[in-house]
Every structure is written in C-alpha cells, then in structure tokens.
C-alpha cells in the first residue's frame, strides 16, 4: 500500500505570498541541559535558498536540529513548508538533511547506502535503487558508486552526504556546513551543486555556514543568529536590487559641474564630494547607460563607476554590532 506525497511546493514563478513560508517560527525556544540556547525566535522565511549565519555557538546547528525534531522545544512553534514540526516523523518524508559531521553506514557501497536512505524516506525499493544511481551521478560519484563508503575520501564522503540528502527528492533541504573540510576544488564543486539545486526550482534549502562567501553565492535570503537570538533577517535579492540604484562616480574634465547638473535634471539625487567624486541615486526607470551618455555629452571622463555593493560581510558585521544583537548578548 502506498500513501501520496504532500502537494508539491510552488515553482519559482508562483507568487511567494500564495505559498506557505519555507520556515516559519513563532517564539521558538530551546533549552539544553537547563540552559537556554534559542530565545523565542520569531520569523517567516520565504526564500528558496536561505542562509543561516552566525558566529560559533550562535545556535545555528541547534536550530536545524530542533526543526528536524532532534531537540525538544521548550516554547513556541515552527512550521516547515506549512506543516508543523510537531506533526511527527511522517512529515519528514519531504525533508532532506546533510549533517555537519561525517555520517555514513558502515559496510555498504555508495549505491547500497543511498538505496537504503531512499527506502527509509519512503521510496519503493526499485525507485530507491534507480534514484540512488541518479543522485550519485548528480554529485559526481557515478564512477565510485560500487565502492565501499569506508574507502571514500573526505571530499567524496561529503558528496555522498549530499547525495543521501537529495536521493528522495525532498522539498526542503537542511545543509549544515556543507563545505566543511573540503579543498578549494571540492568546495567549488559543492557550491556548484547547491546552486544547481537552487536553479532547479524544485527544492528549497536552508544552508548553515560560517563561511559568508558560500552563503552569498548560494542564498537569496539570510537569517543571522547571535547568542540564540535573531540578529538580522535579510532578503539578499531585494538588497541587491536596491543597491543597483546607488552608484559611486569619479569624474575628470571641465564639464563636471554641468554633468552633475544634467544628472539632477534627469531625476537623480546627487551628492558630490571633493576630488571630483560623487554618489548618485538613480530614479526608477533610469538606465545606467544614460549616465555614460550624459558624460559623453559634457565631455567628462568617468574614472570610476561602481554600484554600491553592501557585501554580506558588511551586513553580517552590522548585524553583530546592531543594538538588537547587543541587547541579545546582554
């Protein structure tokens, strides 16, 4: 007898408002050994690729373990793709998890391991075997799939961990430090795979990492934790879109004053500074090419043209130093 899957998650084209939040938390609190680790987390994360950031000991892994049901909540609630985490084991059929530490089952080949993991996620045995092969090829272990897992290198084991997390085609993936212990080439490959998962539009994921660059490359929304509290929640895509309206310019030429005046006439907000430098905010509908046309018209050289780029590192550092985070730390 078979039971059917929960309804598929909407595709990227579907409006976010119509779909349940990828992860929703309402006052989620966790205590371990009588010590509060997570303090009433409340947020709604709608992104397809969510980065979970925070310094060591911020509660990232505890949050993932709580969402997976490994740790008991002391207060609050959480929903994954609209289903409460208290719904029990059956709700985990739509979830994949790649743990941080080395984890595998001894005395198995890659295919046997993935087949068992697929079957335990509810796939029928034949389908599990078929998808085990597919998943191993997907992560680049196709040629090593009949080798015992014990003979895999660290990088291969990391890829096998990713393969077991996706073998059953989950709707939501938890990736806990997926690039840990990988050399630069393997790290690059892992990032490519995670980006491919995002690009497929078929799954959503929460990527926990302390490597800001990894998160920046893969995620469109971030949640920053500090001392078990939310220090910042940020839609990276929206930030990127907003930043494309801020431009730093450095000019050279006699016509500079007229150039700045022309930009203001076109609706730009300009702030000039000594040394022929200035900042402008482009109005809606204005293309950056118009700046170059204006510069050409006033015979001004553009020595520097740069969009404002608030790197994730800046966002992270700001979050760490924000009054809210400081209050959390206190």
């Amino acid at each position, binding site marked *: 007898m078979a039971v059917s899957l929960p309804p598929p998650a909407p595709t990227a084209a579907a409006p976010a408002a119509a779909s349940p939040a990828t992860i929703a938390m309402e006052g989620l609190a966790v205590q371990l050994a009588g010590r509060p680790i997570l303090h009433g987390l409340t947020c709604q994360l709608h992104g397809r690729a969510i980065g979970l950031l925070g310094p060591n000991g911020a509660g990232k892994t505890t949050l993932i373990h709580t969402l997976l049901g490994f740790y008991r909540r002391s207060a609050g609630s959480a929903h994954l793709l609209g289903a409460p985490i208290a719904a029990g084991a059956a709700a985990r059929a739509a979830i*994949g998890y790649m743990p941080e530490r080395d984890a595998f089952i001894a005395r198995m080949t890659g295919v046997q391991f993935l087949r068992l993991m697929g079957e*335990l996620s509810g796939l029928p045995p034949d*389908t599990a075997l078929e998808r085990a092969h597919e998943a191993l090829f997907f992560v680049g272990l196709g040629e090593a799939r009949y080798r015992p897992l014990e003979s895999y290198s660290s990088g291969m084991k990391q890829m096998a961990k990713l393969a077991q997390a996706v073998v059953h085609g989950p709707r939501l993936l938890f990736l806990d430090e997926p690039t840990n212990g990988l050399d630069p080439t393997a790290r690059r490959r892992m990032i490519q795979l995670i980006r491919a998962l995002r690009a497929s539009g078929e799954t959503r994921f929460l990527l926990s990492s302390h490597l800001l660059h990894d998160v920046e490359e893969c995620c469109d929304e971030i949640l920053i934790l500090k001392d078990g509290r939310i220090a910042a929640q940020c839609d990276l895509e929206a930030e990127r879109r907003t930043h494309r309206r801020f431009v730093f310019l450095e000019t050279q030429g006699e016509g500079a004053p007229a150039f700045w005046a022309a930009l203001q006439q076109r609706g730009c907000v300009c702030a000039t500074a000594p040394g022929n430098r200035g900042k402008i905010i482009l109005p809606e509908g204005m293309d950056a090419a118009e700046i170059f046309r204006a510069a050409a018209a006033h015979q001004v050289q553009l020595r520097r043209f740069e969009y404002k780029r608030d790197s994730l590192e800046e966002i992270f550092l700001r979050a760490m130093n924000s009054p809210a985070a400081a209050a959390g730390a206190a």
Partner: protein
Amino acid sequence: MPIFEHAYHPYDGPLTEPRRLPLAIARRGLAEAFASRLVVLLLGAAAIATLVFAILIYLHYNLPALRVLRLAVTKLVPIDAQFFTVFLVIAAVLAFFLALWLGPPAIARDQANNALPLYLSRPITRPQYLWGKMLPLLLLLSVVTWLPGLFLFVLQASLAGGQWFAANLHIAAGIFLGSLVWIVLLSLLANALSAALKRRWPATAALVGLFFIPGIVGGILDNFLTTPWGRLLSPLALMRIIWQGLFRLNVPAYGFVPGPDGHRVWGVLPPVPAWSAWLVVALLAAGCLALLARSLRPYPPIR
C-alpha cells in the same frame, strides 16, 4: 531520469507506508547476517540438532528401524517435557552465540559512524529504528529456537496421537513462551549494550560478562548467606527457573545449605518462586529499554 543528465529531480510518486519502513533496515540486517560464515554455521548446527531430535522421536514409532539397530524402545530417551527442555537448552546456546555475533555490532556501527541522524531525519521514529535493528536477530533466533521446537512437538504429536497432544499441550506453550522470553531478552540486551557502548567488541564482552559474572556473584551470595535468592542475579538461572515452571519440571538446584549441626553442607537449595524470575526478567527488559531510550539519540544529550 537518465543518469547521464546529472540533474536534480523531485519525486512525486507513491510513498511506502511509514509502518513498513523498518523492514528496509531489517532486510539490510538479514543480508549482512547471511554474509557471515559463522551465522550459516550456527544455523546449520541448529538444523542438525533438530534433525537428531526428530530422528529420536521417529525411532520411537518405527519398530523395523529399531530392529535393524537392535534397540528396544525402553532404552530410548523418553519423549517428554525433559526431552524438549534438553532441545531448548541446545537451541538456547546456539541462539546465544548468534546474538553474541549479530547483536553487538548492529547499533554500535551506526553510532560509531554517526549514522543515527541520517536515519532519524527521515520519516522513521526511534522505536521503528530499534524494531528494524532487532527484527533480523529475532527472526534468526526464532529459526533456531521455537520454530524447530514446535516442529518437533508437532512431529511427536502426529506420531503419538491426539491423546498425547491434549495431555502435553503445556509443552508446546513452554517451547514457544520459553523461547520467546529468551530471544527477546537476548535481543534487548545485545542491542542495549550495542547502543550504549557504541563499539562492537566492548559490547560483546559486556554481553558475555552479563551472562556469567552475575551468576558467579549470585552463587557466592547463595553460599555465604545461605539464601536461594542470589540465583536471580544470573540470567541463565532465571531462564532455568522460568523454563522449569513452563515445562512443569521440578529439577532441584544444589548449593550449601545449613546442616543440622549448624555447619553448612552441600544439599538441595530451597526453590525460588517462578514469579520472582519473571519479575527480574521484566525488570531487565525494562532496564534495556531505558538504556536504549537514553542511547538512541541522533546526537548525544548535552549535559
């Protein structure tokens, strides 16, 4: 999807019912068990023991064969509760060695390789995981204990007739219940030690120790304190008391007892009531379950 596409695809097909998921773990466990030569050897030994006992039963009802062997029926071992108890003891020893080989690595390997988070992040609960791990052992132990035992009982009943069957039905119950208690206790102990100690060989040593060391301690207590209760510390003595009750046998236990002049003399120990043995077995099983509940966690509890 063809494997050369190397792309991610979701799965929208039917899913197996959650209650059937532990069977995947059990299948894997059985495959691993049959890959071991020792397991095949022990199963073969159980089959040979069953065959020998079946021949003994058959000889009782085959006069031409007895004539060929120049044996009288009266010289053969009588087919009674004692006969089946002897078979059960042999089967129990084989079951012990099977449990000793297959039980300790079952969960310990998963613990050592951090595999529990992989299992428990899936739609499978801790009791289901344990059930999946215990099922192969329970099946194999059944194959060497109550299944051949009941086969011998049915063989004897079919040859002796309905009257013998009706008069000795308690033997069948004894075979089944006595075996069940033994194999459940063995499986629980082996898996609990495997989960708690997280390494195969320490768990194997602990299992051997648990079956023999408390027996020695109990014997010393019995002899020095002239009490019969020390026996309850030994799982082997517990099973002997339970089986004697189930098979309605009364085989005395020997030890030092107070003599008429105040000195201790070798003699028959006062019997221990069967309920006390059942109680200790129940407590042992509860202890194993508590140990499993504490040890079977995806990540060790933070203290």
